[in-house]
C-alpha cells in the first residue's frame, strides 16, 4: 500500500515538472504506447490557449475539464459537439482573471484517475472520491430494481438473475420489519450485512420504545453507517444500493440508499443495470402514480422493469418479484390489516404479468402515422394502447 502511495507521489512530481516545461515549450506529448493506459504512463496533452479562437479549437478539452463533479457532465458535452461551454473555461481561471491554473493543463481527471483512486481517503483534483464512485459502479452491475409509490401503497419490483439453467434465481428482496422491506442491487454479501443491521435497528425500536421505527430514521442509520466507510482509511465503501419501502405514521415511503452514504426519498426510482430506461419510463408517468390503485401501480412498475430487459428477454414468474406495503389488493388473500410488507413471487404474480400492455404499444411519443391508410377511420391495430391512439395524427385526406 505504501509502495503505491510513494509511486503516486513520484509521478506527481514528474507531472509537475513536465507541465512547467510544457509552459515554456508549447505542447508535450508522451505516448503510452500499446493502446492501454496504466498508472505508469500518464498521457499529458496540453495546449496553452493564446486566444479565444484557439480555445474554440480545444473546446472539447475545456468541456472535459469542467471542474464539475458530476459524471453526467460528459453526457452534456456529447449533446453539444459544436458548442463551447465557456463557463467551464471561466471557472478555471484564477481570481486575478489571468491564465488558467496549471492544473487545467491536465487533460481530464480520467487520465489521472489512477493516481487518485487507490485510497478511499484521497480526493481527486476535481473534488471527487473515486473509490466511492467505483462502489456505485458495483451497484450498476446488479440487475435492475424499480420502486414506486402512491398515496396508499409503496411497491418494489425486482428482476432476478440466475447463473444458468440449473441454478435458482438470486433473491433480491428482504423483509426488514412488518412495515419495511428492501430490494438490493450490487454485492449480495454487503446487502446481507446491511439488512441485518437494519433489522437490529428496527427490533431495537420495537423493544425499547414499543413502536415501529420511522422509515426515514432507519434509512438515515444505514446512510450514516455507510458514510463512515467513505471516510475512514482502510475501509471500503459498501458495494450495494437499496430501494427501501415502508409505511409509518406519515404514510407510505420510498427511499434510495447508495454506497456514498446518501439517501433520498423518491416518488419513483430505479437502480441497477440499464435502470436509466426504467427511470425514463417512470419520469414520464410518475405524476399519475399518486392516485393509482395497487394493480395499476404494479402494472406501471412492470412496464418500467420491462424497459431494463435485454433484447430477447421478457418478464416471467421466475425472474420477477414484487414487494408491497399497504392495504391488500384485489388479487391478494390473507393480508394483515396493517398492510404489512409482503413479497409476491411465482404463480401469484401471473395475474399482474398478464395485466401488462404488450411492448411497443405503450409509447408516449409515437410518431404521427406517416403511412396513413387511404381510407379514413381505419383503426390502429387492436393491441395498441390508448396513448398511441390519442397521439396519432391521421393525415388529412
Amino acid at each position, binding site marked *: 500500500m505504501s509502495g503505491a502511495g510513494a509511486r503516486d507521489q513520484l509521478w506527481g512530481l514528474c507531472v509537475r515538472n513536465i507541465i512547467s516545461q510544457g509552459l515554456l515549450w508549447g505542447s508535450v506529448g508522451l505516448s503510452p504506447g500499446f493502446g492501454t493506459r496504466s498508472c505508469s504512463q500518464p498521457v499529458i496533452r496540453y495546449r496553452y490557449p493564446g486566444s479565444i479562437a484557439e480555445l474554440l479549437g480545444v473546446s472539447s478539452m475545456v468541456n472535459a475539464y469542467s471542474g464539475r463533479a458530476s459524471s453526467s457532465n460528459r453526457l452534456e458535452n456529447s449533446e453539444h459537439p459544436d458548442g463551447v461551454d465557456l463557463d467551464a473555461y471561466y471557472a478555471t481561471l484564477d481570481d486575478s482573471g489571468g491564465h488558467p491554473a496549471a492544473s487545467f493543463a491536465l487533460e481530464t481527471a480520467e487520465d489521472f484517475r489512477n493516481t487518485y483512486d487507490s485510497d478511499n481517503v484521497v480526493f481527486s483534483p476535481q473534488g471527487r472520491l473515486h473509490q466511492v464512485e467505483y462502489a456505485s459502479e458495483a451497484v450498476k452491475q446488479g440487475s435492475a430494481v424499480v420502486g414506486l409509490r402512491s398515496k396508499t401503497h409503496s411497491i418494489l419490483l425486482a428482476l432476478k438473475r440466475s447463473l444458468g439453467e440449473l441454478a435458482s434465481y438470486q433473491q433480491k428482496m428482504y423483509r426488514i420489519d412488518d412495515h419495511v422491506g428492501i430490494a438490493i442491487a450490487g454485492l449480495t454479501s454487503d446487502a446481507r450485512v446491511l439488512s441485518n443491521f437494519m433489522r437490529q435497528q428496527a427490533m431495537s425500536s420495537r*423493544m*425499547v*420504545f*414499543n*413502536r415501529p421505527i*420511522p422509515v*426515514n*430514521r432507519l434509512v*438515515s442509520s444505514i446512510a450514516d453507517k455507510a458514510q463512515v466507510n467513505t471516510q475512514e482509511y482502510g475501509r471500503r465503501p459498501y458495494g450495494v444500493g437499496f430501494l427501501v419501502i415502508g409505511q*409509518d*405514521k*406519515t404514510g407510505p415511503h420510498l427511499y434510495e440508499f447508495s454506497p456514498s452514504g446518501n439517501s433520498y426519498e423518491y416518488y419513483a426510482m430505479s437502480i441497477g443495470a440499464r435502470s436509466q430506461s426504467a427511470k425514463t419510463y417512470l419520469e414520464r408517468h410518475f405524476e399519475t402514480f399518486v392516485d393509482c390503485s395497487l394493480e395499476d401501480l404494479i402494472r406501471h412498475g412492470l412496464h418500467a422493469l420491462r424497459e431494463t430487459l435485454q433484447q430477447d428477454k421478457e418478464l416471467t414468474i421466475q425472474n420477477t418479484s414484487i414487494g408491497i406495503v399497504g392495504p391488500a389488493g384485489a388479487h391478494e388473500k390473507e393480508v394483515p390489516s396493517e398492510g404489512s410488507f409482503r413479497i409476491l413471487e411465482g404463480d401469484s404474480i401471473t395475474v399482474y404479468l398478464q395485466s401488462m400492455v404488450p411492448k411497443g404499444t405503450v409509447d408516449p411519443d409515437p410518431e404521427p402515422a406517416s403511412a396513413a391508410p387511404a381510407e379514413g377511420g381505419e383503426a390502429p391495430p387492436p393491441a395498441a394502447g390508448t396513448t398511441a391512439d390519442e397521439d396519432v395524427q391521421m393525415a388529412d385526406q
Partner: protein
Amino acid sequence: MDHFPSAWGRPRNDQNDMYNTYPIHQRPSSHTNTFTEGVQRTQQPIVTGTSVLAIQYKDGIMMAADNLASYGSLARFKDIQRLHPVGPSTVIGASGDMSDFQHLQHTLDALITDEFTQSDGEANALGPAEVHEYLSRVLYSRRSKMDPIWNALLVGGLQDGKRFLAYVDLLGTTYSAPSIATGYGAHIAIPLLRDVVDGHQDTLTEEDARQLLHDCMRVLYYRDARSLDKSNSFTASYSISLYQLATVTATGVSISDQIKLDTTWAFAEGLRGYGAQTQ
C-alpha cells in the same frame, strides 16, 4: 480454629491457608472480594419523596405530588418538584429516591434532545407510551443487575387524542389503569379515586378532577404521618401541606404553582394529650 480475628465473620477464602504462619494472613482486599462487591450494589433510598396520584379525566390526565423530599424522618427539602414534563405530551411523577429521579430526569432530557436532532417533526415525537416503555426497560435492566433505580413512577399523557396513564417501579413492574397512586397513596387514596374516576373518565370534568385530587392530597396529609413511632422510621413517609398539579391536555403539558391545603386541627383541642391543654 481460625486464629485471626480480622477474618472472623467474613466468608472463607481458601486461597489463603490460615493455619500456616507463612504467608502472613491478610484481610482480603476489597477489590477481589465478591461479597463486599455485592454489599456495595444493594441500595437503600436516602432522600425520598412520598406518594404521587394520577387520574384520567375528560380532557386528558391530571397528576398530583407534594413538594417534600424527606431525609428519613426529617422533612428536609420542602420545595422539590416531583413532576417532570417529557417531550410535548407526557408528564412523569416520581416517588422514592430523589437522586435516582434526578438521574432519570437527565436521562430523559437527553433522550428528548436526541429525538430533536433527528429533525423529523412532530409525527415521530416520543409519546407517553414510548416514554413508559423506555423507562420500564431501563428500570428492569437495572434491577436485573441488582442495582435498582429506587423509584415508583407514574407516566401520563395524550397521544393521538387518546389518554395514556401507567405505572412503573424499581422492579420493572408495569400496569395501566384509569386512576393510579404510588406509596401511601396506593393504600389510602386509590379507593377514593376509584370511586369517582373508574368508569367515568370520559365525563369527569376538570373542575371535579381538581377537587378530587385536592381532597385526596388532604387525606394523605392527615394520614401520611407527621409523627411516627421511631422504631418504624425506615418506613416513614411524610407529606406537607403544599403540592403541585400537572395536567396534560390537547394543548400540552402544564405544571401548576404550589397549592396550599386547607386543614383543620381544631379537633385536637378536645383530646386529652393533644393540643394546648394544660390538663
